[in-house]
C-alpha cells in the first residue's frame, strides 16, 4: 500500500520530532544565552527520547510513505530505534569531553539531531532521488561535525579529506543512479525491480549493469567504510573530536548497511519466502563477497601496526564492516538477522571503547597505546571496562560481541559458503592480536609510576556502566534479541 502525503505524516513522527527539535535548539541557543549550556543538551536528549517513544508507539506498518518516497516496515523500525539510541549515547558521551569543551557546542547538538533524522530517512528511502538527498544530508552534517574544532589543524584537515573523498564517492554513485534511471525509466526501487523482472535482465547490456552496481557501491562503500572506499576512514577518525569519531563509527555505518540492504534486496532481487533470489544476469552478491573479504582482511592487517588507538579502532571498524557484509551476501532472512544483531551489539562495544579513549584523553591528552601502560594501577575500573569492550570486539563468548560473530558465521555456513566463514574466522584470530596488544599495555606494562590515579567524571562513569551492562548481559537476553530481529527482517515489498 502506498500512502499520500497527509496520511504519511503520522508514520513520520520520529523524524519530524527530530527536525523540529533541531530548530528549537537553534532558537534556544541564540536567545537564552545564560541557560543555553544546560538547556541545549537537555532539549536534545529529551527530543531523542520523545522520538524513540514515537517510533516504539507507532508500531510497524507495512507501507510506502509520501507517494512511494519512503517505506515504513519492521526493518525501518529497527533502524529507527538503533540510530536514535546511538544518537542518545553519543550526546551523553559528548557532555564531558575536553576536546568539545573548548568550543561552543550549541550547533553540535543541532547537527546531531539533523544527522540522526537524516540517517533514519536514508534507511527508509525507496526512491533514488530520496536516497541521494538523505545520504547527502547525512554526509554534509558529518563533514561539519568532523571539522567542528575550527582552530585545530588535525580536525580541519580530516574534514577536508572527508568532504573531498565523500563528494567524489557520492558523485560516482549519482552517475550510477543516472544510468540506472536511463535503463529502467524510473527512480522508484520497486518499479526498477519490476522493469528488470518483466523485461528480463538479459535484455540489458551486462557491462553497463556491472558498471552501475560498481558505481553505486562506491557511495554505499563510502558510508560503510568498506575497502576500496575506506581511505578516508583512519584519517577522519584520528582527526575528528573523539565523540564524533564514536558516532561516525557506529551510526552512519549502520545506516549505510540499512540502505545497502534496502537497495539491493528490494530493488535488485526477487523476494521468495524466507530468502531473496538474484535475477539471472544481475549477480551483485559476487561483488559484495569480494568487497567483504577484502574489507576484513585489509582492515585487520592494517590495524596490526597502529600505535594511535583511534587509528587502530578505525581500521578495526573497517574490518567489522567486512564481517557485517558477510550477512548481506547470503541473501537469506537468517543473513539479514545476523546483520541486525551484529550492528546492535557493535553499537555498545564500539561506543564503549571510544568512551574510554575520551576519558583517558580528558586526563592525559594522549591517544597513543603506549601511554595506556599502567592503567590497571591508575584506574582498575577503566582498565577492566576497556578490556571487556575489547574482548567483546574480538568476540570472546561471555560478551555480546560473540553473539554478532555467531550469527554472521552461522548464516554463512547455513547457506553452504564454508570458505567465507573460514576467511572470517581467520580474520577474527588476526584481530585478537591487536586488541590484546592494548590489553597488554593496560594490564601488564608498568608505565610511569609517578602518574596519579585517573579521575572519571560522574557522567562518564554512569555512561560507562550503561555501556558495560549490555556487553555483559545481552547474552542472557539472547531469546528476546532473537525474537526482536526475527520480527525486524520483514522488508516492505511493493509487489504488483
Amino acid at each position, binding site marked *: 500500500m502506498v500512502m499520500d502525503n497527509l496520511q504519511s505524516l503520522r508514520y513520520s513522527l520520529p523524524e519530524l520530532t527530530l527536525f523540529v527539535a533541531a530548530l528549537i535548539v537553534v532558537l534556544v541557543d541564540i536567545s537564552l544565552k545564560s541557560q543555553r549550556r544546560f538547556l541545549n543538551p537537555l532539549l536534545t536528549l529529551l527530543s531523542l527520547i520523545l522520538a524513540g517513544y514515537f517510533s516504539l508507539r507507532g508500531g510497524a506498518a507495512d507501507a510506502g510513505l509520501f507517494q512511494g518516497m519512503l517505506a515504513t516496515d519492521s526493518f525501518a523500525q529497527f533502524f529507527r530505534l538503533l540510530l536514535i539510541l546511538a544518537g542518545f549515547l553519543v550526546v551523553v558521551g559528548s557532555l564531558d569531553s575536553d576536546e568539545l569543551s573548548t568550543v561552543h557546542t550549541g550547533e553540535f547538538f543541532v547537527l546531531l539531531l539533523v544527522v540522526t533524522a537524516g540517517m533514519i530517512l536514508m534507511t527508509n528511502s525507496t526512491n533514488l*532521488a530520496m536516497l541521494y538527498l538523505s545520504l547527502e544530508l547525512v554526509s554534509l552534517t558529518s563533514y561539519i561535525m568532523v571539522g567542528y574544532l575550527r582552530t585545530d589543524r*588535525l580536525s580541519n*584537515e580530516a574534514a577536508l579529506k572527508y568532504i*573531498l573523498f565523500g563528494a567524489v564517492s557520492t*558523485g560516482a554513485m*549519482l552517475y550510477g543512479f543516472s544510468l540506472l534511471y*536511463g535503463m529502467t*525509466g*524510473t527512480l522508484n526501487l520497486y518499479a526498477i525491480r519490476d522493469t528488470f523482472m518483466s523485461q528480463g535482465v538479459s535484455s540489458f547490456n551486462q557491462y553497463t549493469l556491472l558498471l552501475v552496481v560498481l558505481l553505486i557501491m562506491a557511495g554505499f562503500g563510502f558510508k560503510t567504510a568498506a575497502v576500496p572506499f575506506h581511505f578516508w576512514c583512519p584519517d577522519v577518525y584520528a582527526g575528528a573530536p573523539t565523540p564524533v569519531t564514536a558516532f561516525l563509527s557506529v551510526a552512519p555505518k549502520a545506516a549505510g548497511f540499512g540502505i545497502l540492504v534496502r537497495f539491493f534486496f528490494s530493488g535488485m532481487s526477487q523476494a521468495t519466502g524466507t530468502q531473496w533470489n538474484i535475477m539471472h544476469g544481475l549477480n551483485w552478491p559476487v561483488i559484495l563477497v569480494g568487497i567483504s573479504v577484502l574489507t576484513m582482511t585489509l582492515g585487520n592487517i592494517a590495524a596490526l601496526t597502529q600505535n594511535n588507538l583511534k587509528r587502530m579502532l578505525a581500521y578495526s571498524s573497517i574490518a567489522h564492516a567486512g564481517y557485517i557484509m558477510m550477512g548481506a551476501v547470503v541473501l537469506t532472512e537468517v543473513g539479514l538477522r545476523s546483520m541486525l544483531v551484529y550492528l546492535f551489539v557493535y553499537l555498545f562495544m564500539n561506543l564503549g571503547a571510544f568512551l574510554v579513549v575520551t576519558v583517558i584523553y580528558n586526563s592525559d591528552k594522549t591517544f597513543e597505546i603506549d601511554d595506556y601502560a599502567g592503567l590497571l594501577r591508575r584506574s582498575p575500573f577503566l582498565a577492566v571496562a576497556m578490556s571487556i569492550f575489547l574482548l567483546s570486539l574480538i568476540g570472546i563468548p561471555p560478551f555480546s560481541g560473540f553473539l554478532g560473530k555467531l550469527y554472521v558465521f552461522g548464516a554463512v555456513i547455513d547457506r553452504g559458503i564454508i570458505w567465507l566463514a573460514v576467511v572470517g574466522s581467520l580474520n577474527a584470530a588476526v584481530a585478537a592480536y591487536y586488541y590484546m596488544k592494548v590489553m597488554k599495555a593496560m594490564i601488564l606494562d608498568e608505565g610511569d609510576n609517578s602518574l596519579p590515579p585517573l579521575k572519571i567524571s560522574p557522567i562518564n562513569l554512569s555512561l560507562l556502566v550503561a555501556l558495560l551492562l549490555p556487553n555483559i548481559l545481552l547474552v542472557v537476553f539472547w531469546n528476546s534479541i532473537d525474537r526482536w530481529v526475527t520480527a525486524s527482517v520483514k522488508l516492505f515489498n511493493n509487489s504488483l
Partner: protein
Amino acid sequence: MITLQHYLLVSAALFSLGIFGVLTRKNAVNVLMGIELILNSANINLVAFSHYNSANMDGQIFAIVVIVVAAAEVAVALALVLTLYRLLKTVNLDQADILKR
C-alpha cells in the same frame, strides 16, 4: 540531429574529466571544480534520459535536487578550505599532510 548518444558522450567525457581533475589537481578549489563536473555529468544524463526515453519528469526533478545539494556541498567545502587557508596560509592539498605523519 542530436540524439541521446551525443548527450551520453558529453556526460561520460565530463565525468572522466572530473575524476581526472580530482586525482591530479593540488589546489583544493580546483579539486572542488572537478567534483562539480562529476555531479553535472550525472545531471546531463538524467535530463537527457528523461527527455528521450521516459514518459515522466522524474529525471528532471532529480537534476534540480542534485543542483541544490551540490550548492550546499560546495558551501561546506569552501568553508573548510577557508579554514585551511586561515591555518596554513595556503590551499595546496599537498601541504595539508599532518594526518600522514
